[in-house]
């Protein structure tokens, strides 16, 4: 007879493992099925190991500019192998942490590939091919995540044409790298490699770098990447990658004609595709939409008893979104009071230097939505903290509804802004108006004062501009 749980979660990424924990907290008996490593992409091949690489790159940048701070350094070099090794170590530590959390929360970990089957059942195939069925009385949560998307013109060979996993585990630092796509992942790797001395070129299909961000952010990061020595091409597309020679010959169509780049390695960072194959969707009749599992606001799929969250469903492919969805889904499953996720108030961050963080409407989107808006900008140029830290690049831009003062959006670029965006998320959650931001005493001297400074600017009350 099949072993029985209340809830079975397939996939242990930042969607799955928090869902499992929350369900267990609410008194349910839970198992989690994982075919690779606990923690999913985020902990093993995504958020965490990239942030470790970025930190090494940032430290190296400090060292290269040590003299600006009054520190003498005779000779320095990035030990590529050690940088990679550190990153893998951090990822491993976090993954072990999830194992500990599963144990602590009395969640059974079943290693193997899970597949939805019949009614609230999951068939797990272990590495030896042995199959076991498990039943979930309350429901099955599918959280199988996503993987790198392969473009037709850019065949990934795992050696010279690579995706993110390989990019964070290369044996040798490439002398030159062409990054396809300027989303968060592409831009972060571009920064890491450029800081460590690789000649980096970024090719973006859309008219702006970091295309989801406000246009002012795109302009500023373009300027900063230029200073860093990264060549960027927008409105451009990779037509062909020829790997027959020693390196790669990359043919790129740019607005000023075709260009050929000779590089050691090409990194394809052009989005993701959901893991929806071989997980029993067809057999159980779970519907998909544009390659993702279709769900309602409570993450119910088209088949009762099956739920789906995270990167295998629509919505922004972000770890914190997967987690929020997992928690809400678990609460719903447990019959606990919960509330649906507000997808309009999700922050997004890019952890290159200067960092990028944003939430809510861009200026363009706010105008398109018909808002009459007030826009304010505070450049870090005018910030005492930024001056003291030698980080005057960037700004905070805020957008308010002119009529009611609703905080429509915030767009930040600069040192530590990824730690500053939570203020705006919470303020928006609490339905602030500009007034309360202006009357909240921000500590001096901080970068976060710029949120208040930008709001002052929007209302013609700027003190430090």
């Amino acid at each position, binding site marked *: 007879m099949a072993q029985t749980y209340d809830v079975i979660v397939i996939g242990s990424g930042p969607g799955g493992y928090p869902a499992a924990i929350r369900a267990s907290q609410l008194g349910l008996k839970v198992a989690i099925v994982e075919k690779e490593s606990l923690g999913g992409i985020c902990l093993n091949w995504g958020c965490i190991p990239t942030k470790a690489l970025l930190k090494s790159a940032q430290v190296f940048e400090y060292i290269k500019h040590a003299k600006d701070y009054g520190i003498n350094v005779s000779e320095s070099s990035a030990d590529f192998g050690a940088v990679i090794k550190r990153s893998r170590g951090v990822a491993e530590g976090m993954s072990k942490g999830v194992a500990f959390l599963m144990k602590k929360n009395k969640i059974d970990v079943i290693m193997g590939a899970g597949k939805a089957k019949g009614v609230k059942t999951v068939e797990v195939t272990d590495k030896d091919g042995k199959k076991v069925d498990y039943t979930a009385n309350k429901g099955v949560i599918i959280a199988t995540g996503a993987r790198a998307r392969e473009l037709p013109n850019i065949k990934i060979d795992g050696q010279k044409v690579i995706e993110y996993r390989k990019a964070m585990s290369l044996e040798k630092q490439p002398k030159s790298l062409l990054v396809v796509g300027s989303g968060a992942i592409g831009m972060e790797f571009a920064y890491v490699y450029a800081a460590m001395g690789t000649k980096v070129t970024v090719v973006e299909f859309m008219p702006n770098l970091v295309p989801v961000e406000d246009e002012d952010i795109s302009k500023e990061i373009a300027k900063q990447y230029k200073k860093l020595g990264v060549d960027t091409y927008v409105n451009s597309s990779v037509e062909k990658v020829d790997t027959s020679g020693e390196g790669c010959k990359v043919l790129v169509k740019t607005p000023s004609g075709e260009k050929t780049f000779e590089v050691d390695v090409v990194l394809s960072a052009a989005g993701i595709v959901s893991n929806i194959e071989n997980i029993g969707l067809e057999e159980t009749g779970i519907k998909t939409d544009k390659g993702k599992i279709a769900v309602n606001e409570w993450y119910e799929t088209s088949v009762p008893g099956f739920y789906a969250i995270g990167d295998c469903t629509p919505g922004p492919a972000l770890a914190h979104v997967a987690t929020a969805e997992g928690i809400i889904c678990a609460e719903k499953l447990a019959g606990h009071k919960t509330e649906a996720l507000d997808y309009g108030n999700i922050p997004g961050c890019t952890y290159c230097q200067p960092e990028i963080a944003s939430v809510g409407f861009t200026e363009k989107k706010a105008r398109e939505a018909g808002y009459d808006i007030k826009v304010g900008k505070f450049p870090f140029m005018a910030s005492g903290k930024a001056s003291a830290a030698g980080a005057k690049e960037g700004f905070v831009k805020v957008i308010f509804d002119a*009529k*009611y*003062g*609703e905080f429509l959006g915030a767009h930040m670029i600069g040192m530590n802004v990824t730690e500053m965006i939570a203020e705006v998320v919470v303020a928006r959650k*609490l*339905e*602030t*108006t500009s*007034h*309360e931001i202006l009357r909240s005493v921000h500590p001096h001297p901080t970068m976060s004062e710029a949120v208040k400074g930008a709001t002052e600017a929007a209302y013609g009350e700027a003190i430090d501009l």
Partner: protein
Amino acid sequence: TAASSDASDRIKASPLAKRLADEKGIDLSKVEGSGDNGRIVKRDVDEFKAAPAAQS
């Protein structure tokens, strides 16, 4: 001052809800709050408007 004597008698509303109610001439004491601890939020004011305001 005692830490216990608030919340019940005072109307709690988000700043945005207050501004909206003000603008639309809605009496907040008539609005039921759906937020935490019965806090009145934008949605409550919007929906209050949609409901027949004729009763007043």
